[in-house]
């Protein structure tokens, strides 16, 4: 991917909290250094200038919830050499995916009244509609991990995930094990690189970086079933994995 011309980057957001873009802005100088190597040709949140030709890289944050977003996703796919999902709403459906498609109608009625026709169809990951080249998970993404992946992306390297789970990072940080304290935790099966940041703050791990490839979900469930109710386990998995395919494996 080495050539003189700057890579054309489009940064798009569908329905979400925009927190992953805020994490990117939080990279400050690092972001500036990366932005020197690409030309941001389309970024609604950051600039008015918007080109719609080809993109070398399209980054998409958020879940394609409305028909307009689903159509736009397909258009962006056609125009992009590499399509990368940014953040858990894009990669797994995120928090909005807690609700199933069928449940949405009753909430449109309750929240907006019977006259209102909801725009949102269903909160699904980008991969439900188009082929995705790589997923940068996280709710929110880790700025540093995203910077590492961007750097590889811009330099044409093969993209990969860290070869460890959140559990490993938690051990490195010397934190007390939640499972030993009989508190549910998805750390052992969750893809790492977040630095176990939620666990460091005292919160649970709901596996927002996705389920690590090859993780033994069954073994974790055996442990969880020893002290947690079916409902509690369901709650933990539903936070970010309601629509992820791996959820069906448990």
């Amino acid at each position, binding site marked *: 991917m080495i050539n003189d011309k700057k890579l054309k980057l489009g940064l798009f957001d569908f*329905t*979400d*909290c*925009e*927190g*992953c*873009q*805020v*994490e990117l*802005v*939080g990279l*400050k*100088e690092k972001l*500036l250094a990366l*932005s020197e190597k690409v030309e*941001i040709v389309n*970024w*609604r*949140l*950051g*600039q*008015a*200038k*918007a080109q*719609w030709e080809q993109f070398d890289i399209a980054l998409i944050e958020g*879940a394609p*919830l*409305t028909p*307009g977003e689903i*159509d*736009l996703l397909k*258009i962006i796919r056609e125009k992009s050499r590499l399509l990368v999902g940014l953040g858990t709403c894009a990669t797994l459906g*995120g*928090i*909005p995916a*807690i*609700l199933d498609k069928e*449940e*949405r109608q*009753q*909430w*449109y009625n*309750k*929240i*907006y*009244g019977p*006259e*209102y*026709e909801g*725009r*949102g169809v269903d909160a699904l990951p980008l991969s439900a509609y188009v082929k995705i080249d790589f997923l940068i998970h996280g*709710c*929110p993404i880790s700025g540093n991990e995203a910077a590492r992946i961007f750097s590889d992306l811009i330099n044409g390297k093969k993209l990969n995930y860290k070869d460890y789970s959140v559990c490993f990072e938690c051990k490195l940080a010397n934190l007390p094990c939640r499972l030993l304290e009989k508190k549910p935790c998805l750390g052992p099966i969750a893809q790492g690189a977040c630095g176990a*940041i*939620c666990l*460091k*703050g*005292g*919160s649970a791990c709901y596996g927002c970086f996705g389920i690590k490839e090859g993780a033994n979900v069954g073994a974790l469930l055996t442990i969880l079933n020893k002290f947690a109710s079916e409902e509690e386990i369901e*709650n933990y998995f539903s936070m970010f994995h309601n629509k992820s395919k791996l959820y069906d494996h448990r």
Partner: protein
Amino acid sequence: MIIDEFIAKIEGHGALDIDWANKKARLRILEGERLFEGILVNRPAEEAPWITSRICGVCPIAHNLASVKAAEAALGIVPNKTTILLRKLMMASQIIQSHVLHAFFLASPDYLGIDSGIELAKKNPEIFKTAINLKGIGDEISLAVAGRSVLPTTTTIGGFHKIPAKKTLTELSGKLEKNLNYAIAAAKIFAKLNYPQYNIELEFISQTDKKNYPGYESEIIISSQKDDSAIEDYKNDIQEEVRLDSTAKFGRYHEKAIMVGALARLATHHDYLDPVCRKYLRATNFNNPFHNNLAQAIEILHFYKKAQEIVGILLREKLDPTVAVPSANPPLKGIGAVEAPRGGLYHEIHLNDKGKITFINIITPTVQNLPSMEKSAQAILDQSPKISLAEARKLIEMLIRAYDPCITCAVH
């Protein structure tokens, strides 16, 4: 293409319709509905702050703490003094983070004749340096107290899972001292920007405890037109209108279009500002909504000083890490109100006796600002008979940015 109708450089997706023949302006909100008020039902109370903070990546702390306060009211929990101080520090960092992001990176390019915040680096390096340093400080306070710069990890109903060590607070104190000049620079920069000059009658609303500049503690809602109301009546006094072509509701206070946020707090509470902010008040025109961005810069300085003050108190006092527990026979219904960066935010939570959420209602600041944005847009059209459609569109988009709408919050 559909995306081109979205207004650039605001949080979330909205479009501006101008009926040029009749000189009318209207907003259409197009963000997808995530239905947070549905997502939360049947989930445990303790998940409320975790989930609602994900309504908005720009003001997650405000949502997190509004839910915490609502759940504590429902459970009859009285948090300790350390907890309150740490939450006030979080709110200070929240205001700094959100205002810096918006005022510098999204709004200031309008007044400087450039397109994006990234361009500031080359074209206005001093302004860029100020923005980057202040964003860094806001993020560091959040990281130290809330556990992460975006989306808190340490907070819980009743207190904190973890409180910062004195050593962390000492380091924070040093950094705040060292970078104070950037907070002063923020107010100076925005006092000197060239804002479009309009005079529009604005009614301002703010939560208050009548003792402090608004933020974490709220007891009543006050209006610049002396039309006060109780927080408990928020749902009656802030009426939300559903428009069939908009995914966000439009909120009016006592049936009037009102403005909430930085300019509203400044108008109603300038007597409570840190003294160092006072001289920038003279530059503020409370009839010009574009001055909301100046008010944001003044608030950056105020909350910076506030953060310094709170860190000082935390360093002097013995910190109590205890998490407060529910009282016997709690009401199981509670309202959590805070002044978020964009104005008054309300979370109401009802629980069953197993601690599961049975009902949640959220009214966000931007919902309250939407009718005022349309009213001010209309005033611009009325007051500028000679401008072209293209100029009107540009100016009204600037106006909308000046209000700092958060559409992701408004729809939620």
